[in-house]
């Protein structure tokens, strides 16, 4: 029997080891798997490479992971925000490396990793500092740079519903990078607001098919990043 459900967030992240590359879903406050990140902080892995659109807000979730000095390298599109002081301090202190990737290129590199594509030509970043040093090619009169897939060891994803096969739905704009990161990681770990019976998700409504998911854990009332920041919450 296929049963990807695990009992706790601690169990879900128990095999994430030092030096792992970890994709973390979410865009702004929508879709952040905050409880899984906190479990990862408890787990204690260090020297991580973390991929996220941003670089954490306030002092919870990814920002807390950074503050706990667990992240050696951030790959993101836009590290700054109104509450990104955790990253900014570490970056200025030289305690975390940063690779900035254009957002569409980040999404496409994740998809390429999941889809078995060895590389692709994108027009994005041609002639800019982020295209420097990359192989370029003119195809049908348009210039492109060659980008490579972005594979990872783990993905931490927040979904709305999940079943024991790992089929997922997402809520509204919390979908963002989730479906792509699920494809790109060797092991995909999902926190879902609710668990459905098998067959409880309409086959046409499944956004991430279970084939891309390894573990599912129920987190019925995930933390609100916005409220946590307003309250000044810190983790741990």
């Amino acid at each position, binding site marked *: 029997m296929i049963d990807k459900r695990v009992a706790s967030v601690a169990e879900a992240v128990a095999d994430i080891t030092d030096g792992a590359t970890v994709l973390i879903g979410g*865009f702004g406050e929508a879709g952040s798997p905050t409880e899984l990140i906190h479990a990862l902080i408890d787990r204690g892995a260090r020297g991580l490479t973390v991929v996220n659109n941003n670089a954490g807000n306030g002092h919870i979730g990814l920002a807390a992971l950074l503050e706990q000095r667990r992240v050696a390298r951030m790959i*993101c599109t836009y590290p700054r925000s109104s509450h990104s002081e955790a990253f900014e301090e570490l970056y200025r202190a030289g305690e975390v490396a940063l690779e*900035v990737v*254009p*957002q*569409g290129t980040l999404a496409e590199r994740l998809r390429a990793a999941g889809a078995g594509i060895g590389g692709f030509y994108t027009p*994005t970043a041609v002639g800019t500092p982020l295209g420097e040093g990359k192989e370029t090619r003119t195809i049908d009169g348009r210039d492109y740079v060659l980008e490579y897939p972005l594979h990872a060891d783990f993905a931490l994803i927040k979904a709305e519903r999940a079943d024991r096969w790992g089929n997922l739905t997402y809520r509204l704009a919390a979908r963002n990078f989730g*479906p792509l990161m699920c494809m790109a990681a060797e092991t995909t770990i999902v926190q879902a607001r609710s668990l459905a019976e098998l067959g409880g998700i309409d086959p046409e409504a499944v956004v991430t098919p279970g084939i891309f998911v390894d573990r599912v854990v129920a987190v019925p009332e995930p933390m609100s990043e916005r409220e946590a920041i307003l309250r000044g919450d810190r983790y741990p």
Partner: protein
Amino acid sequence: MKQGLTRNQVAWRIARDIPDGAIVNLGIGQPVLVANFLPAGREIVFHSENGILGMGPEPPEDAQDEDLINAGKQPITLLPGASICHHADSFAMIRGRHLDLCVLGAFQVAANGDLANWSTGAEGAIPGVGGAMDLAVGARAVYAMTDHCTRRGEPKIVARATYPLTGRGAVDRIYTDLAVIDVTPAGLAVREMVRGLDFAELRARTGAPIEPADRLGVLEAPEL
């Protein structure tokens, strides 16, 4: 004497040029103002990089939803006809030239349309690009919305960009507080200029050669 348009007035002017039915992405910052001034009777579809097509205005505070934000991380609504997709599909729309128009802010626009809007290249600054490079290269038309000069009076329209580029030859038209300027293969062509400015003055405030377009109109907007 206040000579130029306010940012709201520039936004109003840009909104007039967005045709009925257009699919549009408004960049973070000044460009989002454009949505406030759409002429009545036009149905415009707004795209947001984070997987939203058919974005509506910010809801009242008690109706905000953390799972419904735009690329600027601000609460939004969905209009009837809206759809949600993941980031790869959202950027397929952009990179695949399906957006009719994008309005982007600018640090510099060069005479050849080169756009710099993501980094001043300053020592110690934390870089961050978001979706700007994809939008610059992908939208069918790119309008730059910018002050004509910096606060220190330096031109933002320049012969060659000195800031790190966002995209090569990206910009099709520039809207400033002083003028509306087309980027053409022959150079920068001024379509509209505010009253009370003569062309020599505009030239003086512009860091690249400009010429009047065949018909040079007046850039004006109502009090807003």
